[in-house]
């Protein structure tokens, strides 16, 4: 497969995952703002912005509605929903012949939904509904991607993009939240604290899944354990990293070359960290540093992917 094509598919997928992440976090933040709590709006927005990668030209201005609008519609703000969907569509358009008509149509529809003259009004009338319909559109896209595309190399790059983006976003989110989360006093949670924890879970669409495993007994330790180490939940870090590893293997099987040792090592180490470390060990050590390491490994994997599959030097390729 052409490197350019793999690159476009990979980024198309990452951008959609990113759009979804922005929507979920924004949605949770906006709903938490409704409850009065000891956490100020400013603190919440700071946290939100940091976990979205700290877009440079955005700072809390005291107007939550305007801030939300910016994160959804402002095409100049890096992680905004519009920016991500535009970028995803542009990537898809470059490789229109490599994706299915259904995929293209879903993505196109999503794009036009964001750019419709009614979008702003719909958003103003009911933000939750609007955001939910965008997320629906993204889910539909993922669904048709899985059902209408050959599960060959291109699909593996899409999957790789999805899981790597998700792993990175989840690690960032937890890194931002963990300090305050673990500092919560050991007493029974007040209603506000409960809401806070539910919010964190909802940022990863994991509240219901958590309850199935741990019941509604929310505790920071268990939440961290669930979001980091669960094997079966798609938004858990371990699951995402397993997805990354599977795709790397599959790429070699479906036409690409064997991933280099460094890349396998980086993914393997990450897997081992999440597979064989217990939550107690993490908590006894330095959870912040642990999460930071995960992020670094994700970044490494991305860099190596690029260096090996997309932007390799001619000399290195000829030497093989």
């Amino acid at each position: 497969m052409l490197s350019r094509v793999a690159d476009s598919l990979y980024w198309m997928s990452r951008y959609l995952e990113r759009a979804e992440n922005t929507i979920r976090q924004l949605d949770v933040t906006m709903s938490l703002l409704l409850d009065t709590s000891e956490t100020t709006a400013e603190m919440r927005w700071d946290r939100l912005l940091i976990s979205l990668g700290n877009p440079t030209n955005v700072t809390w201005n005291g107007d939550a509605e305007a801030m939300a609008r910016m994160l959804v519609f402002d095409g100049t703000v890096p992680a905004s929903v519009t920016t991500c969907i535009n970028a995803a569509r542009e990537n898809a358009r470059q490789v229109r012949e490599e994706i299915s008509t259904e995929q293209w149509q879903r993505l196109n529809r999503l794009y036009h939904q964001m750019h419709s003259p009614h979008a702003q009004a719909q958003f103003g009338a009911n933000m939750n509904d609007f955001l939910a319909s965008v997320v629906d559109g993204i889910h539909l896209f993922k669904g048709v991607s899985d059902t209408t595309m050959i599960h060959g190399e291109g699909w593996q790059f899409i999957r790789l993009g999805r899981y790597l983006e998700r792993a990175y976003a989840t690690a960032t989110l937890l890194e931002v939240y963990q300090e305050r989360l673990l500092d919560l006093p050991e007493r029974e949670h007040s209603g506000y604290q409960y809401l806070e924890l539910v919010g964190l879970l909802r940022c990863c669409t994991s509240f219901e899944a958590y309850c199935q495993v741990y019941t509604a007994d929310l505790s920071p330790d268990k939440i961290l354990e669930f979001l980091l180490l669960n094997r079966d939940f798609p938004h858990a870090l371990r699951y995402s990293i397993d997805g990354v590893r599977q795709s790397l293997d599959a790429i070699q099987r479906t036409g690409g070359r064997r991933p280099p040792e460094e890349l396998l090592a980086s993914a393997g180490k990450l897997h081992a960290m999440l597979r064989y470390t217990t939550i107690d060990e993490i908590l006894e050590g330095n959870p912040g540093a642990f999460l930071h390491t995960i992020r670094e490994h994700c970044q490494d994997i991305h860099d190596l992917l690029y260096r090996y599959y997309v932007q390799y030097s001619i000399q290195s390729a000829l030497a093989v």
Partner: protein
Amino acid sequence: MSGTVPSHSGEPLPDASAGSGNERAAAKSEAPEQAKPLEVEFDLGTRDQDDGRTLDVDRMFRDYLLDGAYDEMRMPDGSIRPHYKALMETLTSLPHEELQRRKQSADLSFLTQGITFTVYGRDEGTERIFPYDLLPRLISASEWDLIERGLTQRIAALNHFLRDVYGEAKILKDGVVPRELVYSCKHYRRQMCGLEVPRGVYVAVAGTDLLRLRTGEYVVLEDNLRVPSGVSYMLTNRRVMKRTFPQLFHSYGVKPIEHYPQLLLNTLRSLAPEGRPEPNIVLLTPGVYNSAYFEHTYLARQMGIDLVEGRDLVTHDNVVYMRTTDGLKRVDVIYRRVDDDFSDPLVFRRDSSLGCVGLFNAYRAGNVTVTNAFGTGLADDKAMYAYVPDIIKYYLGEDAIINNVKTYLLTDPKSRQHVLANLDKLVVKAVGESGGYGMLIGPHSTKAQQEEFARAIEANPRNYIAQPTLDFSRAPCLFGSEIEPRHVDLRPYILFGDRAHIVPGGLTRVALEKGSLVVNSSQGGGSKDTWVLE
């Protein structure tokens, strides 16, 4: 990005930049457009005139204009030509609703096959279907035989010509074609001199535009020897028409065209460098912003080859590679849909970012075949066109089977004088332009425009040619439940590898707007399926 990206690569093609749009604007000055339709009875064979359908037929042909131009379906007296009878019978026997239903299902078929123009930057209606007409254009076997022989002769002679001009230049020494015409041509590529191209084939893919004069005679309007396009519309039209009129199609015994991609692939394969038995063939596109991008993706998919852009290619030691996730993969044959100018910034335009650095040297070294070859534009220059009959005679010793349109070369003082005196009656074209640019249509022009052209011609006579305004043929088109004639041309696609292959038919372009002579899709033109009968 460092270089400039042209908005399109200048391909003569059915939409935006077609090479021969207005130039068909050829309203005869003597016959007013509003000439009354002839009141005629027509003969639909053995049908009973009293079965109530005659009324429909009358209405169907209410606005059917018959005047001097050749009508593909009807004789001057209004009767239906024999090979169109079955089509007419089908049409008149179908209830109006049924016809509309078929039209809708054909529309849908175009839409779902993705044969659409994508209109970007709009909030809705992003995808528009390519305009087409539901009625096929029919060509009889004997007509086709002539066209096929004529085009085969032409492509062979033009390849001879290019090989000669870039080689020994005998035709110039013999004074058949003037040297200055060659060396002043904007598409002449001195880099090609003395270079042997694989199998001596310069033009492997050509699209030649034919018109039909009042007498019914086919003439060549122009050759497209650089990067002709539109073949994807020919193929998709056929697919849709087979579904729309299956029985009619079957009963006519239409010659197939569906194997075009395979023939193209075989042609490309036959031109691979020596010693590459399993050549890696790719299609080089300028990218998504090119107006023919749909066609590029379509052909690549139909042939099962990779669609590459310049940035996918690298050269090393005069070998071209493409970057894949499995490392660099050697490229053997490039079906090039990028203009000469933008193909290699080292040799051609330096500000191009569409091409591949070092491509020309790899080509020169014989490590990769690029087709069509560079510099083929020399032979489709509008002034060179006037010499094609002489070129055919010179290399093949034969007379041209299909004639040219009469062309005045303005470098000749006598012709120039005649043209300048008759600017209001003639069509003047700039030789190197396409897409209807740099053109004067005498009967439709103002005095000021004529004066402007007169000055331009005086300043640089080599840059212009003149032709009489042509009254080219019309074919029936369906509008609602009525049938009206519209002007059509024909672009057959010629492949030339070990020998010439022409799939029977081609792209019939049609000026869908009433009274219009412009077949460009950007200006109300569309296309029709073309059925060559057994």
